[in-house]
């Protein structure tokens, strides 16, 4: 019931969500010289460094490595940014929540949505890079929006939990920050699932983002369809988490104002 209420509020307040996402995207680089280009420059810098270290220093032989890497790195950036921003979203909007009639339910959606908009805006660079490395785009690219939707759900389901908890336990933000760094290495972003020895596969399989990143790779880089069954598993997991998260959020919503 409470989960339905959250969903209803989010749908009703979609205009507010759009406006807040626009604000986040706009504000992020206000006052900088290069503005939105920074969204593209950050992953490109990583790409150059990782390519240098992994392909040239360590000689890990993944062909077309920059294109391979960026295919996984861009969605990961979306994921980690929105989980981090979402976790502190209630605390960051304390002034709104304490003094105004403001629907807190929309804030997690705003965080994940902002990350997604940045991802979409960086897609042209990815497509150019794929073309430069001669990776043909197949029909499988049609599955991209679906993979993105799965990631959206997964990130959102995490954020409803962490945002709620962070109101009461402010350390969570830093725990999440370190957790994301660990997760970055334990997700096949700069390497491929197939080159990991089988006895370690279970470590990667603990992490639903493994399936999501692998799906981006298959769809954009390898020109194959995702493993639907695995993706379906992530959707199921995210939906369960989302319902529980929404209930936890809703139960605590009206005490946020007292703790912020």
């Amino acid at each position, binding site marked *: 019931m409470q989960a339905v209420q959250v969903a209803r509020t989010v749908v009703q307040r979609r205009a507010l969500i759009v406006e807040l996402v626009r604000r986040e995207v706009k504000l992020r680089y206000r006052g900088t010289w290069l503005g939105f280009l920074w969204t593209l420059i950050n992953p490109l810098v990583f790409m150059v460094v990782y390519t240098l270290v992994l392909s040239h220093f360590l000689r890990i032989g993944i062909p077309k490595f920059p294109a391979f890497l960026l295919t996984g790195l861009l969605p990961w950036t979306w994921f980690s940014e929105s989980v981090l921003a979402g976790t502190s979203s209630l605390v960051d909007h304390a002034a709104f929540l304490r003094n*105004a009639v403001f*629907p807190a339910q929309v804030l997690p959606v705003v965080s994940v949505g902002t990350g997604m908009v940045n991802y979409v805006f960086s897609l042209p660079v990815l497509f150019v890079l794929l073309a430069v490395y001669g990776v043909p785009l197949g029909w499988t690219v049609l599955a991209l929006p679906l993979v993105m939707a799965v990631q959206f759900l997964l990130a959102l389901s995490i954020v409803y939990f962490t945002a709620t908890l962070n109101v009461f336990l402010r350390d969570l933000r830093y725990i999440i920050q370190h957790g994301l760094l660990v997760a970055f290495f334990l997700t096949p972003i700069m390497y491929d699932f197939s080159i990991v020895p089988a006895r370690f596969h279970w470590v990667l399989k603990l992490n639903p983002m493994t399936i999501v990143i692998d799906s981006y790779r298959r769809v954009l880089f390898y020109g194959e369809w995702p493993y639907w069954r695995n993706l379906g598993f992530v959707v199921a997991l995210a939906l369960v988490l989302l319902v529980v998260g929404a209930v936890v959020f809703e139960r605590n919503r009206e005490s946020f104002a007292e703790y912020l």
Partner: protein
Amino acid sequence: MRDAIILEHVSKSFKRYPTRGYTTLKDMLVRGEWLRRVRSRQHVEALKDVSFSVREGTVLGIIGPNGAGKSTLLRLIAGIYRPTSGRIMVNGRVSALLNLGLGFHPELSGRENIVIGGLAYGLSRREIRRAMGEIIAFAELEEVIDAPVRTYSSGMFMRLAFSIAVNVDPDILLLDEVLAVGDAHFAEKSRARMEEFKERGKTILLVTHDLATAQGWCHQVLWLDQGRVVALGAPAEVVARYRGKSVATVG
């Protein structure tokens, strides 16, 4: 006439910790403070068994000493807090001006803040577009409306907040001691706008320390003390009793 607001046996208690509202992991683990905090936590009752109703079109003044629960009452009606027990029913769109200017984003322009504020109140984009000119004109901020609000003076902040709150076409307006703020010119304008609201039959709840306003302008006055309703009724009568009590306490 319907009731705009109904409160049935509403109580609100806050958990008060000796230190602060939130925990850090260090407190919990290293200093083992978590248990101590839970043990030492006190329940502070801000409102105790409050029941009353407000008819549509009533201007209700709320008076009482500091800490009587006046602001808590408005926050409950606005839906910012949830009552610990009891029920609150509100019919119509609520606009609240509880704490001046807070809830603005400092880096955004006045215009952008109006859009976000309006959407947060539940207006559609079209309604906001229609109200935009009036909000800006009423606040007299035409020249700075596209500058970030962090560059505004506190008076400009206040004017913008007030102007948004009264121009989103609310059915119920909750105000926390605002009429006293601002320069004489704007105070006069706000008063006129409030008068217009009153004539259009809007419901207004006004927390005030100004007994003259409570007596002269409100239809009814609610006297709160230590979270309880002491009196609710005709302004002259309640204010006179309140005066008597205050004098007696001071004297």
